[in-house]
């Protein structure tokens, strides 16, 4: 009687241990990986990165704001800063802290690795866009500059990360910061989103959920206290100033505002035809190239043809062939001018 019971218990314990060790994100292996992260060097590098970001955007920066950004106490930050000063990477001017030239080039190296890795994750892997920043925060301390340069060379030396930030060159050059926060845009002005701040995380997630991404045209409709109304590629959005300030835009003085809103391909019903307007910039890398290979490019017309027996992939007719597209992909393809059409005519 006892033996099978004992064996079963031991077996369950063994399976439990295996699961505990290997479980993604919360398992022992994953935790060990995270613990390795919070070393002194990581904190130093993160501080440099923050200081650089402030200088780049022309924001004054002091001990308390840096401590808040890194989520450590002001005392710890003071020790870190003293250490950075001893290393000749920062100088103090009253309350404000500035990077020295050595400090700046150190910071630029980290920023370069960070942004190259984000671009790599976005274009060459299946990592979701919510995770790009967090993963790059880990890799920036582990990857050497040479390794990052090799990755960059393989991707054709990209100039921007997927959030729209410029990637510093190998020489440590970076174009001047031209953007303004969306909240500063006046009524009637037209601009392009150049960057969506990925910190704090909850704001970034909210903005992604609204479908906002770099490259979209925005048209400021109404600015009121506590409420900013604008059209993003023709679709009306409302944000609080806090959220709007996380979006950086570059004014487009001569552009005509896009009047008509877009719909998503997933809304197209069978036997309806529409014009393709574009693919969201969240659809990147291999997947984007694949869609473009099929002819999903602005200006082509596309017809929903048949729904699969289980409902999800829908067959679309484009350029004379039928391809199946899943709903979550169709959500990233923008269309307009939906027309109900007799099929014989469109063929």
């Amino acid at each position: 009687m006892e033996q099978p019971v004992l064996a079963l218990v031991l077996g369950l314990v063994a399976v439990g241990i295996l699961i505990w060790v290997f479980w993604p994100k919360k398992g022992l292996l994953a935790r060990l990986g995270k613990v390795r992260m919070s070393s002194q060097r990581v904190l130093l590098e993160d501080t440099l990165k923050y200081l650089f970001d402030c200088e780049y955007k022309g924001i004054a920066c002091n001990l308390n704001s840096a401590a808040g950004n890194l989520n450590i106490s002001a005392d710890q930050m003071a020790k870190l800063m003293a250490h950075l000063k001893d290393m000749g990477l920062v100088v103090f001017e009253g309350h404000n802290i500035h990077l020295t030239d050595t400090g700046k080039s150190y910071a630029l190296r980290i920023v370069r690795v960070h942004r190259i890795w984000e671009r790599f994750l976005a274009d060459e892997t299946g990592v979701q866009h919510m995770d790009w920043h967090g993963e790059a925060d880990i890799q920036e301390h582990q990857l050497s500059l040479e390794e990052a340069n090799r990755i960059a060379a393989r991707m054709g030396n990209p100039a921007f990360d997927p959030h729209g930030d410029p990637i510093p060159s190998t020489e440590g050059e970076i174009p001047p910061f031209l953007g303004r926060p969306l909240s500063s845009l006046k009524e009637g002005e037209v601009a392009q989103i150049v960057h969506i701040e990925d910190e704090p995380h909850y704001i970034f997630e909210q903005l992604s959920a609204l479908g906002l991404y770099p490259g979209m045209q925005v048209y400021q409709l109404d600015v009121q206290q506590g409420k900013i109304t604008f059209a993003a590629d023709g679709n009306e959005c409302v944000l609080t100033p806090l959220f709007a300030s996380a979006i950086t835009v570059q004014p487009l003085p001569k552009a005509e505002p896009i009047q008509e809103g877009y719909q998503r391909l997933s809304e197209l019903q069978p036997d309806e035809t529409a014009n393709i307007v574009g693919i969201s910039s969240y659809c990147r890398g291999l997947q984007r190239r694949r869609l473009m290979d099929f002819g999903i490019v602005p200006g082509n017309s596309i017809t929903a043809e048949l729904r699969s027996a289980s409902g999800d992939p829908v067959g679309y007719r484009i350029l004379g062939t039928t391809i199946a597209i899943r709903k979550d992909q169709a959500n990233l393809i923008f269309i307009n001018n939906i027309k109900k059409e007799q099929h014989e005519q469109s063929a």
Partner: protein
Amino acid sequence: MMEQNKTKNTEEILGMANNLKWELGMGIHDKIVSSLYADAAQIARKTVSMDGDKPAFSLDRKIDKIVTSRWSGFPIMFVLLAVVFWVTISGANYPSGLLASLLVDTLHPILKSGADSFMPWWLSGLLIDGAYLAMAWVISVMLPPMAIFFPLFTLLEDLGYLPRVAFNMDSLFRKAGAHGKQALTMSMGFGCNAAGVIAARVIDSPRERLIAIITNNFSLCNGRWPTQILIATIFIGGMVSPFWAGLVSTGAVVGIAVLGIAFSLIVSWGLSRSVLKGEASTFSLELPPYRPPRVLQTLYTSLIDRTLFVLWRAVVFAVPAGMVIWLVSNIHIGGLSLAEHFIDWSNPFAVVFGLNGVILLAYIIAIPANEIVIPTILMLTVLVTGMSGVGEGSGVMFELDSITSTESILRAGGWTLLTGINLMLFSLLHNPCSTTIYTIYKETKSAKWTLIATLLPIVLGFVVCFFTAQLWYLFAWGFEF
């Protein structure tokens, strides 16, 4: 000096390129691609006329409406696949028997006596009883079903129907983090896992392709069907009255196959959320127009590319394995053969998993092909129990025509209903055969994924067998003692 100049120039140019890229902004690459396509489309609109394919296209639409309809889509698919399997199994029976009687029953004794006349006994045993017999077995069991299954499958593919199956099944596989085309590689795996692994080439997304390759082994391949049917008939069909026996044992085999599909979906789900999380993933599925299949070409390519290719690999692996099988049962240390030493040593361990040492040894030495597992088990059982009058001597694999005499050998080897059930489970969940392992390596070019694809199923197999056995012991205790 020249060198230095050159590097400086490269850096300068790269720096300039970078500055220009910053000025142009992010979307430049997309804009170039879009304008290329727009130009191409415009030229095509002007110069290509497309009236010719209209009637064919509307017929396509009508067929598509039926085979992808919510009501008739799945029934049509199940009926077609069932017909393919039925034709394969019933059609392969006769040629398989013919080949076996020719290669094993007729040719083997002739070769053996011929070889005995001029070779020492150990050499003729090694070459004829070991190498030749393993090869003969693999060919006679493997060739006929593959020669029927692959052409049928390729015909459906050529007709344009298979992409519609992937289209209908995609939503199920999407939930498991896999690609709809995995339905096709899975079905292909029911014929042969090595062919199923090769078929995963149709999946162009790196992550989904790896998932399809790693989980293909959960499709019960045709080398394992006979084992399942035999064991189910003896142990599970034997539990009920003869009237129900056929139905119950068929149900058990189908149950194992369905369990395999369930495992393949669950493991796909787990893989896509853990080790394969970061791999690039895309979805694309073209639904090509239907066309009359090119029968002769299909026959030729499926016979040469798939059947003979896979068969050749299997034979290459079976020959050395046959020698090993003969050697372990004929090399004696201290009065016992190597096989008996291993079986005695591993028995206590095997009992924990509801198996026995013979089964473990058979699965280790018969790794090249699942087809020779049962002949090896029978030979080893006779060897260990010291039965006389059955089989053809140590190291000579055999099978019996009569199910009752097979049963009496297994019962004499100490098999119970639990051993039968666990053998069926273990036959579903164990490492792929060496042909498949080699094919996985060839396809993935990665030792890591090959290792995972090999070890994952066998670990699962031991876990499942362990819990089945221990629960069994727990409940059987009340009845038996």
